[in-house]
């Protein structure tokens, strides 16, 4: 059709668009959508292994799924909680949270300072309504209403005939406290992430650890942590006790760990007096600037290796890492000083060792009841290209396996106190004793108290906001022959079931 006027749409300037974006972002619907998105986005982290938690399992998963693995990896499914998409959701949620809290606080403060709203003209149109006749003068009746309302209500007597009252401001206060405290939790988590650090170390019995970055097996400092200036404490592991279930024989219980205790001697800083401390699972040792946690344990073999010349070229506890619940512990003993060739032992340390037909040498109980070392031997170059690999495995690319005198693969089975001569005059290995080690995690989180207190405040605010009832009660008193008529009306924020009863009780107190 011709001649129809073109519709002119109102245009939004940059400020308008910003305002529009802000309105939408801070709307309840967006918050709801973001919450549901957050829930969905958090799920992959529970389904796929996470690199930050278990790098080995993550690598294995990618290896086993050559087509899917790399795709998921690119999308961040193995580091869900550090991905841009996850961060985007919670940052938007944080903005939405702030955008919701700020204006509501302003309004709430105004309510707190202001007077309850005016009395409506028709009280009988309110959700709850009661009428009573009393034989009191109107001003006395109004005073009676005021008394009946009690201290919970803030009462505003408008004139001789009407009053308005409001109660339950704590509902909104609690709600705001909850949301503000949530911001505190998020800030606390962020501070802990940026300025906190965590390190893991395996400490065999009798050894000492000084808290410097170099001594850690792994150290994960936050981006703003100066790893040179870690608190200068040190500790010695004097003793480690482990108790395993050996009475209940049922499935899944026999051999389960029951109690681990590490006896530490700690020193706050070089030169300070040392202190005896008991470290248990669930009972960390708090040091100045960090806390020590007992997270793992296992066995180390105290061995001595002599080479072809009879020279002691290796001595000391060698850590093996448990592979299963019975502590069958694979590991390696690397002897770079041996002549004529470098030697590398590989195999398992078995706290209760047996040789089975199917699985070969395994441990059948986690306690050190009958320890044994089951080893094989390689010779050649331990660290080809000068790269030192993992201390727990041998890189055998530049090594050859050693055979026994019959020409078969050499298998060493050795018990504490025994010495085994290596074939071809290569020397000997002595297994002195089995020792325990403690897997320690040392952590510093500068904001853990902020996070804790914020979350407790959030809980308190939540309870207040859910349980307190926001109510408004209005009263109008009119003179009738022989007394006065009291009209009460009430409304509640949100629909509320007990409102009418509440009003009836109130009326009963005015006109018994």
């Amino acid at each position, binding site marked *: 059709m011709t001649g129809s006027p073109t519709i002119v749409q109102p245009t939004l300037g940059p400020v308008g668009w910003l305002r529009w974006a802000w309105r939408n972002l801070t709307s*309840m*619907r967006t*918050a*709801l959508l973001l*919450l*549901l998105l*957050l*829930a969905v986005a*958090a*799920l992959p*982290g*529970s*389904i796929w292994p996470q690199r*930050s*938690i*278990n790098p080995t*399992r993550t690598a294995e998963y990618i290896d086993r799924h050559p087509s899917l693995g790399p795709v998921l990896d690119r999308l961040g499914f193995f580091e*869900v*909680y550090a991905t841009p998409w996850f961060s985007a959701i919670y940052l938007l949620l944080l903005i939405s949270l702030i955008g919701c809290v700020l204006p509501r606080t302003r309004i709430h403060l105004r309510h707190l300072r202001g007077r309850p709203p005016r009395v409506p003209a028709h009280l009988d149109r*309110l*959700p*709850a309504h009661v009428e009573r006749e009393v034989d009191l003068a109107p001003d006395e009746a109004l005073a009676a209403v005021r008394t009946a309302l009690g201290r919970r209500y803030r009462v505003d007597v408008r004139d001789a005939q009407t009053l308005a009252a409001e109660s339950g401001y704590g509902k909104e206060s609690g709600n705001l406290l909850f949301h503000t405290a949530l911001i505190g939790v998020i800030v606390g*988590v962020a501070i802990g992430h940026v300025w906190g650090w*965590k390190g893991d170390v395996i400490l065999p019995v009798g050894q000492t650890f000084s808290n410097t970055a170099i001594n850690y097996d792994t150290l994960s400092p936050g981006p703003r942590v100066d790893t040179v200036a870690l608190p200068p404490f040190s500790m010695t592991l004097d003793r480690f006790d482990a108790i395993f*279930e050996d009475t*209940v024989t*049922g*499935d*899944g*219980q026999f051999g*389960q*760990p*029951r*109690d681990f205790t590490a006896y530490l001697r700690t020193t706050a800083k070089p030169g300070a007096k040392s202190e005896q401390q008991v470290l*248990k*699972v*669930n009972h*960390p040792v708090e040091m100045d600037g960090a*806390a020590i*946690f007992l*997270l793992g344990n296992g066995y180390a073999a105290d061995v001595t290796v002599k080479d072809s010349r009879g020279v002691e070229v290796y001595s000391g506890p060698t850590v093996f890492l448990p592979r299963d619940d019975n502590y069958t512990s694979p590991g390696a003993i690397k002897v770079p000083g041996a002549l004529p060739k470098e030697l590398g032992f590989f195999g398992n340390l078995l706290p209760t060792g047996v040789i089975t037909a199917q699985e070969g040498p395994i441990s059948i109980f986690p306690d050190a009841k009958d320890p044994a070392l089951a080893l094989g031997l390689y010779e050649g170059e331990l660290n080809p290209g000068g790269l030192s690999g993992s201390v727990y495995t041998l890189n055998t690319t530049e090594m050859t396996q050693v055979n026994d005198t019959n020409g078969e693969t050499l298998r060493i089975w050795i018990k504490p106190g025994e010495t085994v001569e290596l074939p071809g005059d290569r020397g000997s290995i002595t297994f002195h004793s089995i020792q325990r080690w403690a897997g320690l*995690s*040392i*952590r510093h*989180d500068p904001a*853990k108290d902020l996070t*804790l207190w914020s*979350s407790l405040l959030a*809980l308190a605010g*939540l*309870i207040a906001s*859910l349980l307190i009832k926001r109510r408004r009660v209005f009263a109008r008193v009119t003179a009738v022959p022989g007394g006065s008529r009291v009209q009460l009306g009430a*409304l*509640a924020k949100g*629909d*509320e*079931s007990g*409102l*009418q*009863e509440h009003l009836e009780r109130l009326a009963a107190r005015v006109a018994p």
Partner: protein
Amino acid sequence: MTRETLEQYSLVSLYSALAVLTLAMLGYVIYLARAASTAPARPATTREPVGVGARSGVASDVPASRPPADDAATLRARRAAGPARMLTWLATFLVGLSIVLRGASVHRPPLGNLHEFVAAASFVLLLAFSAWGLRRNVDWLGAFVTAPVLLMLGSATTFWYTEAAQLMPSLRSSWLVIHVSVATISVGVFTLAAMVALAYLLIDRAESRDGDSESGLGRLRRVLPPAAELERLSYGMHVIAFPLWTFTLIAGAIWARQAWASYWNWDPKEVWTFVIWVVYAAYLHARATTGISRQKATYIALAGFACIIINYSIVNMYFVGQHSYSGV
């Protein structure tokens, strides 16, 4: 008595509870069937407009669950509900006894593995329902409570059974009692809330098909309270369960800091606990948002309950994490 004997008695008690509860469920189902076929149809309620001011909400404050007519047929229906109520009390007692015996068998709070957790949650659910029944008539809810509890206890005694034993070191903490018992109560209340929510959606559908009072749903409407009341009840229970779940989350974090060095490790169980919290938070938001219907909000609450089921079945059994102590 020895540990094994006590464990056996505990199990016998639990099996007895299963048998008793099966009978109770039958009683409640018979009650529903009889009451639905005999009770006079409730006068069609006018669908209430959304505005707060218009919501009179007065009539539904009084439990409307009891049909007014007290004729012989209604009496017949009640005759099925009475024993069902008593049997539910008995089952509650038996589950409680089983838990106590289990605790005596191992000399520790019996909250250390999935079997024990589910038994405790069932106890909370049964106790809450039975105690509620003392204050008002909730026979209509009986079938909705006994059926899921049977399912829970059945799984606890078959798939998830774990022999009574001591705890592994990481579980030896007073936080076990604090964290797990509150989680138990919370799950019990969430389950009850979800059942009422389900009843709400059913009745709401029946009410939207007004006039059709002879279909199954239409008949059910004669026994159950009106939809608006069910919705309010369900909300009220969620409002109790949600802070308890929040506390579970916080107590778990405090404990995690003591046991695992970090208060939050994104362990699968932690992730799901968080997800459940977020979904229920979304429900509370949805319910407070004008323009989002109560039905939609209720669907979100049921999604939260689905997450709880996944958390205690799939996550416990199949996901590798630091909470892998289900003992199965």
